């Protein structure tokens, strides 16, 4: 499975925080990143995420994800920069002509977009690295009252990713051993040569899903009032941090409306 969404067990206070607190953190970062368009402020927000990752002892594991994001944001920025034509023209991409003007607004705006993208996306691997998905889901069911069935579907789909990877591998090997060629092809032909494999994979997936449903049925799934082995508490520190973060957001919105920070 992709290392990006993996839980990284450490014994830090951030790991011990309630999943809802950490989710609130993610949402607040998202809100703030939409509030601001100053690349410097956005960069500070990004650094704050890195700081949290560092305090949780998972910064090293996060670096590949951050790097990937940086590249992605870079590409995004390159595309974006040509589409904003407002503002003062600084130069043209092809000198001497008037093709593809680069404006100050363009640079500023696309930098903001890129940075915003990074802030939004960077908080998720940190959230998932410090929180077990199952704890997150339990909290969503218990406190936010999301129906358990939907939450369960989400957990199960995560659990089945490695199973399907294995299944796919097996089907590919089975088909290759019968002379189905996958290597030495360009991307498009490779895509088409993978298509015949999709049908067996779909059939086995449906069968597995059915078997899983049967297994759940025989263990009382959907009986109604459910309990949980691990109760997760919302402790004083969670209240403190959550209220603190909300206060900060309120202040930022206020300052933003006053035009002090943009």
């Amino acid at each position: 499975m992709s290392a990006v969404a993996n839980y990284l067990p450490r014994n830090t206070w951030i790991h011990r925080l309630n999943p809802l607190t950490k989710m609130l953190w993610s949402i607040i970062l998202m809100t703030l990143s939409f509030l601001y368009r100053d690349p410097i402020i956005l960069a500070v927000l990004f650094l704050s995420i890195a700081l949290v990752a560092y305090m949780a002892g998972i910064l090293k594991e996060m670096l590949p994800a951050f790097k990937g994001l940086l590249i992605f944001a870079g590409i995004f920025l390159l595309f974006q920069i040509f589409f904003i034509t407002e503002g003062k023209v600084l130069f043209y991409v092809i000198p001497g002509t008037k093709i593809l003007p680069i404006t100050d607004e363009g640079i500023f705006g696309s930098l903001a977009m890129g940075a915003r993208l990074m802030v939004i996306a960077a908080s998720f691997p940190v959230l998932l690295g410090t929180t077990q998905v199952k704890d997150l889901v339990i909290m969503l069911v218990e406190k936010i009252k999301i129906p358990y069935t939907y939450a369960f579907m989400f957990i199960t789909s995560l659990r089945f990713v490695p199973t399907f990877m294995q299944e796919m591998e097996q089907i590919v090997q089975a088909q290759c051993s019968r002379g189905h060629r996958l290597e030495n092809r360009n991307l498009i032909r490779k895509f088409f040569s993978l298509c015949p494999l999709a049908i067996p994979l779909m059939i086995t997936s449906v069968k597995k899903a059915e078997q899983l449903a049967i297994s759940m049925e025989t263990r009382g799934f959907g009986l109604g009032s459910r309990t949980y082995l691990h109760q997760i508490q919302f402790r004083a520190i969670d209240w403190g941090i959550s209220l603190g973060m909300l206060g900060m957001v309120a202040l930022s919105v206020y300052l933003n409306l006053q035009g002090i920070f943009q």
Partner: protein
Amino acid sequence: MSQTVNPAILVENLSFSYPNSERKALHEVGFEIQSGEFIGVTGPAGAGKSTLILCLNGIIPHFQSGTFQGKVLINGRDTFETPCAEISRLVGSVFQDPEAQIVAPSVEDEIAFGLENFGFEPADIEQRIQEALSLIGISHLRYRSTTELSGGQKQRVAIAAAVALRPQILVLDEPTSELDPIGTREVFDVLRKLNTDYHLTIVVVEQKLNVMLEYINRLLILNQGKTVCDLPPRRILEEPELLTGIGLKVPPVSELAYRLRKSGKYRPELPLTVEEAYCGIVQSLKNMRNNHD
């Protein structure tokens, strides 16, 4: 009111066919299982063994569609009229595919899943998890992720998850398909313990007759959806054609003794285990020597 005790399982004239298939997967099957019995089910591929198991835990007719005829009574209650969840309080199930029946990301959560669904208190859940894990002998797996387990380990986890619910009846569909001979015996030893110490009624589908015959009270043989026979293991050994006729193998020790007896060299009861065969052969040799003298 009659005072007679209901049998744990009563199957009467049971027929079932899956949708889009003319052939009946089960054809007028009938048998009775008393509380505390240990029953084996065998038969060639496609005989209807898995289908029968699904009829015992109520998945058929509640979950799997198809044509259902006849009756299945669990502790006297008709499965047709009892919701699946109710049946699941009485009947614990372990299925053939160890991969697809595991629902939770960790072993601990997997065992807890059913208990949580039934609404047990966390303290009870905790205690039952420990109990089930140690009973099956997998306490060391408790905090492992279920995706990284071997097939055999998954099968044991599935058994533990079913046992943790403390059902009165346990039905298992080839629970040892991914286990080596030693592992298979370990699982059957656990089943025997559950059967004798906890008075659990057990129905197990199994292909490995040489192991299973030692453990069970009766063997139900299915072929093409029909009951071939329903007899104690020793009676089946007396008529090996019941097995060989439908392409099943007689356990080697039993076959050896059976052939020796045919040629008049083996008198005692046909053996189920190597130990019994050894004693029987030693005794026969002694008798032969005495006859010569």
